């Protein structure tokens, strides 16, 4: 069984470091990407795929956002998020040269090193592609160490597809099988229509030698696991990234507690087998 990879917390985890916006990129109607660089006198933050940072918009608030950039180039810290509240709305207004505070990186990582020698299946839904992208970068940078690599990605509509250009490039330039599907098609859309889980029976991988990494709405991940089990992938080989109300990010405040787990500290990446029972408890 591959395990989610823990990572030592930063030395001063409650102190935000000043970062400066290098680029602000709209992705879709309600999602955007910020590329940040450490302000003068501060070090870039090395991170592992799957980890998150706490981003602080001064005077507005602080939110946990997964890192969506390439772990090989930590000098550019990349975050992609959706506008869901006051802080992320203020974050979308940031422009080149604006400053914000960053605490992190926090949490566990996708087990990409442990997956070497095996097929790797990425299953992403909606904004869930963002936390998986660093793992994709890492796997593609060492492509020869893996068997088949497959990305299944579901979005609400064609207009909601993230990282379009990159999806096209990955498909063209790497030995990576990419399948994109949308829940609701437009007239111009000529791709797959239907839920992302419906793609699982169609793609080639060896279920006995596959590590599956999935991120998206919890219901989607639950059905993904069911479909993977139907194909013969054991739940121990499936990893999920969970989202809860992370506040302190170091396992103290309890806001993100899920049973005995603190999602900020023990997650956000978990082996599915470890949290399966917890996800069935509605009260959690």
């Amino acid at each position, binding site marked *: 069984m591959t395990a989610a990879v823990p990572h030592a917390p930063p030395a001063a985890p409650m102190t935000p470091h000043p970062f400066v916006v290098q680029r602000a990129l709209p992705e879709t109607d309600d999602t955007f990407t910020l590329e940040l660089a450490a302000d003068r006198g501060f070090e870039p933050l090395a991170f592992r795929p799957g980890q998150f940072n706490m981003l602080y918009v001064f005077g507005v*608030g*602080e*939110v946990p956002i997964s890192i969506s950039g390439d772990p090989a180039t930590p000098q550019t810290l990349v975050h992609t998020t*959706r506008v*869901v*509240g*006051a*802080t*992320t709305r203020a974050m979308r207004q940031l422009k080149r040269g604006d400053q914000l505070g960053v605490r992190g990186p926090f949490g566990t990582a996708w087990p990409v090193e442990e997956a070497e020698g095996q097929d790797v299946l990425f299953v992403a*839904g*909606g*904004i869930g592609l963002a936390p998986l992208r660093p793992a994709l970068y890492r796997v593609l940078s060492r492509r020869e160490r893996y068997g088949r690599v497959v990305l299944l990605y*579901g*979005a*609400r509509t064609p207009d*909601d597809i993230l990282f379009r250009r990159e999806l096209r490039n990955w498909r063209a330039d790497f030995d990576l099988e990419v399948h994109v*599907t949308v*829940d*609701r*098609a437009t*007239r111009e*859309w*000529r*791709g*797959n*229509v*239907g*839920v992302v*889980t*419906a793609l699982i*029976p*169609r793609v080639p991988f060896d279920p006995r030698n596959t590590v599956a990494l999935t991120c*998206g*709405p919890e*219901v*989607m991940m639950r*059905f993904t696991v069911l479909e993977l089990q139907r194909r013969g992938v054991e739940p121990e080989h499936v990893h999920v990234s969970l*989202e809860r*109300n992370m506040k302190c990010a170091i396992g103290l405040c309890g806001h993100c507690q899920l049973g005995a787990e603190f999602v900020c500290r023990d997650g956000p990446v978990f082996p599915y087998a470890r949290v399966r029972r917890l996800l069935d408890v509605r009260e959690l």
Partner: protein
Amino acid sequence: MTDPHGLAPLLADHPFFRGLKPEHLATIAGCASNVRFDAGAMIAREGDEATQFYVIRHGTVAVESFAPHAGPVTIQTVSAGDILGWSWLLPPYNWQFSARAQDLVRAIALDGTCLRGKCEADHDLGYELLKRFAEIVAQRLSATRLQLLDLYGQTPARP
């Protein structure tokens, strides 16, 4: 039963027919023929008599419904390894949706009228087929329910 087009081995390779008894496979192959549709071709039209279903071997098919003012709306797509159509199985045997080839589609067409007769004559075959169709119907119902949840449109409240 004869297999006039020699399709039994192809059917045996398809996930839908995997594990069927050879005699059942041969019976089904007796109702089968190879078909191809160019990109854009209509494979079935909503409301038309459903006399066939298709085992998709290559390409993608858009399952559509026609909505006033919106035109044809794609509800789902089916691809190689999938089955298209179960209206042949249930009265009134009319297509509930349209089906259009998105690209070059190669498929095996199964004559539903022929198969219904054979299922009536051989209930073991009928039960076997019905079980397999029921599984597909259940999977698509489940997928449709997920689509209805509009998962990606919802986000938990955040600061």
